[in-house]
């Protein structure tokens, strides 16, 4: 700043992509509150995007707002991003990360040699803290000259950019300005300072082959958090909060920052006395002196807090890291110049769902959406789409899928300014929420081969009503299934897919493609089922049993006789397996009983075997657990089963009974209190009122009859 006042330039040339110049008029006005960022994207493909963030302490921000205030000219002289965008080669590095440019590697190395972890601090200490301008410019120039010679020949990108900058300087020089100030990164100093020594024609030759595309640029709000993430200095800590302090308070920054640290820690429940803060300040100064720094930097403050307050541990600082180091400042861009297309779309859609007021409040609200109403259904789809885009405006608390028998979704909704940034980021996927979420989900689906993940994405696509994505994921699934037909994952995925059909009416989706997919999957899964099951250990059996019951339930919903028959056959193989875990075996047997494939006589036979005295009680208890898994109330009504279990318990000695008890309890834990009472009553009564059913279920199925004869001959 003092530099500007001293030199009083009538024209400032800034190292910013040329197309951003149109936006300069807003800098320093009350339409913008930094941190903000200029977003530049390819008009045709919004996913090709660059951010140019500003903080209040950015030199560019300071210079441009000074020029705006004093009415002097200010221009952007760096190569337009439109050129970079046109060529893939140029697009790395620069586009994603503008802040990093300021300290390219050789400078970072020098800083480290000088004993600084943070190149920014080194630069500050060495150059910017001195008052006379002339003093250090020749020094910097000398250093840069040498560095550029040492470094690998400056890459083409740099050369082209510098040629462009010189061209702009020439243009400005021809006009009637008297004092032109060129604000560029030190790295470019040798190339820009002696601009008149370079031939204009040579520069032109470099620029000529470049192609240009159409881009759009506008301001979006930014946050310190984002700046700190994107600048990512590996060696040091990049701390926007610290630099803001330094900018605002200069010499007093250390004390102010430590006081802030103390206050924040007190808020988190630490007891910090003012004396400790002043002790830390003393230590920080002492350290700075020892390290030959003019004033203490964040590193010294850090060390001081650790030693004085943190008992030598760094962990105390993690508590206040985000506030103290990163800072929770979020910028603002006035609506009149806000151009983020997704935000506009969101505004429009919320309005049509009569929720427009939501964006003006920062309270957390509960919204219950009745999916049978069109406007509510649309709002639900909007929320799901936003979640796909990771714009977490709304969190789902309850849905028909989780709470059966309802038609409503319960959402918790909260708008915050930081979502604005998320929305802008999501803008890379498209200019409307529907298109963006569609593209993003397709992109994610294309990157994974995980069937489970894909199945859950299908669910998302359904809820967000993105039929295009839906079809494309199903196609993708078909491709993967070709190599994965025998995977056990499929067993777990099918119930979810069936759910999609079940709620399809409510969500208004086309079901035929899922049915087609299921037609391909179910026969395979059922035929491989016995093999999968054999591979399950006792520890995993409980989970597998649940999966099996879900699968059975899913087949129930579909109500396809062919599917049922295949499943029955698989179960019949499973109950005879020698290696299958007892719990799964019992659950399979129970399923066959419930489905009326096996009658009570056969099932009792199996049960008697399972409860034989010779077997180890633990296994038997597991068996019972599996048998009762689907519905434990069976014993209330069925005397013969009950008697079998009774007999088994009777022959256990006290010691064994005690040990088997926990598993038994678990086995019966699914019974309600009332059911238990009823069971106890029946156990007491000698006469059983319920007649045991004695039908034969296998009539007319020769396959099954053969099978059963085989089993019985065992």
């Amino acid at each position: 700043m003092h530099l500007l006042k001293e030199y009083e330039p009538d024209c400032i040339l800034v190292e910013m992509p040329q197309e951003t110049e149109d936006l300069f008029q807003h800098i320093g006005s009350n339409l913008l509150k930094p941190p903000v960022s200029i977003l530049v994207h390819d008009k045709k493909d919004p996913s090709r995007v660059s951010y140019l963030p500003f903080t209040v302490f950015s030199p560019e921000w300071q210079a441009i707002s000074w020029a705006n205030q004093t009415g002097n000219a200010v221009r952007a002289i760096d190569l337009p991003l439109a050129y970079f965008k046109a060529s893939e080669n140029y697009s790395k590095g620069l586009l994603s990360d503008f802040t990093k440019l300021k300290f390219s590697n050789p400078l970072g190395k020098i800083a480290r040699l000088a004993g600084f972890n943070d190149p920014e601090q080194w630069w500050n200490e060495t150059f910017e803290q001195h008052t006379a301008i002339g003093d250090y410019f020749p020094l910097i120039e000398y250093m840069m000259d040498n560095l550029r010679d040492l470094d690998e020949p400056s890459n083409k990108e740099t050369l082209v950019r510098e040629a462009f900058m010189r061209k702009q300087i020439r243009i400005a020089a021809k006009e009637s300005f008297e004092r032109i100030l060129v604000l560029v990164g030190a790295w470019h100093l040798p190339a820009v300072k002696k601009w008149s020594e370079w031939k204009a024609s040579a520069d032109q030759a470099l620029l000529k082959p470049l192609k240009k595309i159409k881009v759009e640029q506008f301001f979006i709000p930014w946050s310190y958090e984002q700046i700190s993430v994107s600048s990512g200095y590996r060696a040091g800590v990049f701390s926007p909060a610290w630099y803001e302090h330094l900018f605002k308070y200069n010499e007093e920054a250390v004390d102010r920052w430590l006081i802030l640290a103390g206050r924040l820690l007190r808020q988190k429940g630490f007891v910090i006395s003012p004396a400790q803060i002043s002790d830390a300040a003393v230590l920080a100064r002492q350290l700075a002196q020892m390290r030959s720094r003019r004033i203490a930097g964040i590193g010294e403050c850090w060390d001081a807090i650790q030693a004085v307050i943190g008992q030598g541990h760094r962990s105390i600082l993690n508590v206040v890291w985000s506030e103290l180091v990163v800072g929770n400042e979020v910028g603002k861009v006035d609506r009149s110049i806000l151009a983020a297309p997704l935000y506009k779309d969101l505004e429009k859609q919320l309005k049509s769902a009569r929720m427009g007021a939501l964006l003006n409040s920062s309270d957390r609200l509960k919204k219950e959406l009745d999916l049978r109403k069109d406007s509510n259904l649309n709002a639900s789809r909007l929320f799901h789409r936003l979640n796909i885009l990771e714009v977490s405006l709304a969190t789902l608390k309850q849905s028909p899928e989780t709470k059966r028998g309802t038609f409503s979704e319960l959402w918790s909704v909260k708008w915050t300014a930081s979502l604005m940034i998320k929305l802008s980021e999501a803008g890379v996927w498209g200019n409307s929420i529907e298109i963006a979420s569609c593209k993003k989900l397709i992109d994610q689906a294309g990157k994974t081969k995980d069937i489970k993940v894909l199945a859950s994405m299908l669910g998302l696509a359904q809820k967000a009503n993105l039929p295009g994505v839906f079809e494309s994921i199903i196609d993708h699934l078909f491709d993967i299934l070709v190599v994965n037909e025998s995977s056990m994952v499929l067993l777990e995925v099918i119930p979810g897919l069936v759910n999609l059909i079940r709620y399809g009416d409510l969500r208004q989706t086309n079901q035929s493609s899922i049915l087609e997919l299921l037609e391909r999957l179910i026969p395979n899964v059922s035929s491989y089922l016995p093999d999968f099951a054999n591979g399950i250990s006792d520890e995993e059996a409980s989970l597998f049993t649940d999966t099996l019951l879900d699968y059975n339930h899913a087949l129930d919903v579909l109500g396809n006789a062919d599917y049922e028959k295949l499943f029955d056959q698989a179960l019949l193989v499973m109950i005879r397996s020698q290696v299958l875990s007892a719990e799964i075996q019992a659950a399979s047997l129970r399923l066959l009983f419930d489905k009326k494939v096996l009658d009570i006589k056969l099932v009792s036979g199996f049960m008697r075997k399972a409860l034989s005295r010779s077997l180890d009680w633990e296994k038997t208890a597991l068996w019972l657990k599996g048998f009762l898994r689907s519905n434990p109330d069976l014993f209330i009504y069925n005397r013969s089963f009950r008697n079998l279990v009774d007999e088994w318990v009777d022959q256990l000695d006290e010691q064994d009974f005690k040990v088997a008890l926990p598993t038994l309890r678990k086995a019966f834990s699914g019974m309600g209190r009332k059911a238990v009472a009823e069971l106890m009553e029946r156990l007491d009564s000698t006469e059983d009122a319920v007649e045991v059913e004695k039908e034969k279920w296998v009539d007319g199925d020769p396959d099954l009859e053969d099978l059963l004869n085989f089993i019985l001959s065992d």
Partner: protein
Amino acid sequence: MSKQSFLHQYSEEKYKKELAALLKADKAPKPENWKLSPKAVVHFLMGGPLGAKIKITPKYFGDRRLMEVAVASLATDRALLLVGVPGTAKTWVSEHIAAGICGDSKILVQGTAGIMEDALRYGWNYATLLKDGPSMEAIVPSPVMYAMQTGKIARIEELTRIPSDVQDSLLTILSEKSLPVPELNQEIRAVSGFNIIATSNTRDKGVNELSAAMQRRFNVVELPLPKYLKDEVKIVQNRLQAMDMQVELEVNTIPEAAVLKLVQVFRELRNGIVEEGSIKLKSPSAGLSTAEAISVLNNAQVLATHFGDGVVGDKDLAVGLTNAVLKDPQNDRAIFNEYLEVVMKNREEMKNLYDACKALIF
């Protein structure tokens, strides 16, 4: 060297030349009564060239930042507390800092559970006391009092082993920089330059935890175990060389491979993971610090010199190693055996060490 040499040489004796050279070159501002500036003290600790000819040997291998904080603390009016697990060079660092600052590392109080207030304040010369009554002449100063009077650094070892009520007698000394003598209605005031370096062991945590009032008066610097294998090997080699000079054993230095091997085994067992990061291990109950590795190697060297062929071999290492690891006979044996079978056996360079260890524990 003189005819009679001592087992332990104080830092200021041993590095007399280095300290003199640093003093000569030291231009940075010094706190009152400091021999060297804080910057020079850190230079003394961390080592590095001084001018073109002189090279200061490094005494501390680790983060320079920690030493800077430690020395800077002493220049403020707070005392310094060095904490860390056993064998992280706390005492070593405190001795060298004291030598650097005031050229005297001998003003020392060893903290014990049975220590009395006298050791931190003053005692009485009872003959004079009975003869003439209480007077300044009858007072026998403690090391702390002596440091106050001379403006030097007092060192207190194992601060947290000292009972809390005795610890409390340091409060006035640290906050008021004075030591009241109520019997004479007088006080002894600390001369500039006085400060205290205390050390405490994190394994003792909770024995006599510092009170809030005490904590307020100390800046704490935690000395960590060496982060990288390379650093730890360097520390061990350096210390071994220093010991050779001391004990004057005329032996070949221990082969680097042996040092590397042993330090690696120590680190892997201590950290519960192999250096490559691919296998997780159980850690035995023993601390297995760097200092212990040094003592095992030293032991191996003595074994090799007096009972072996002079060169430290895997058999010599195995004896010390198994002794260091097997503190709890049952658990540690199982853990060590697992390490031998899973890790050591599969490393070509550790084959012989594996055989030697196996022969010892079974």
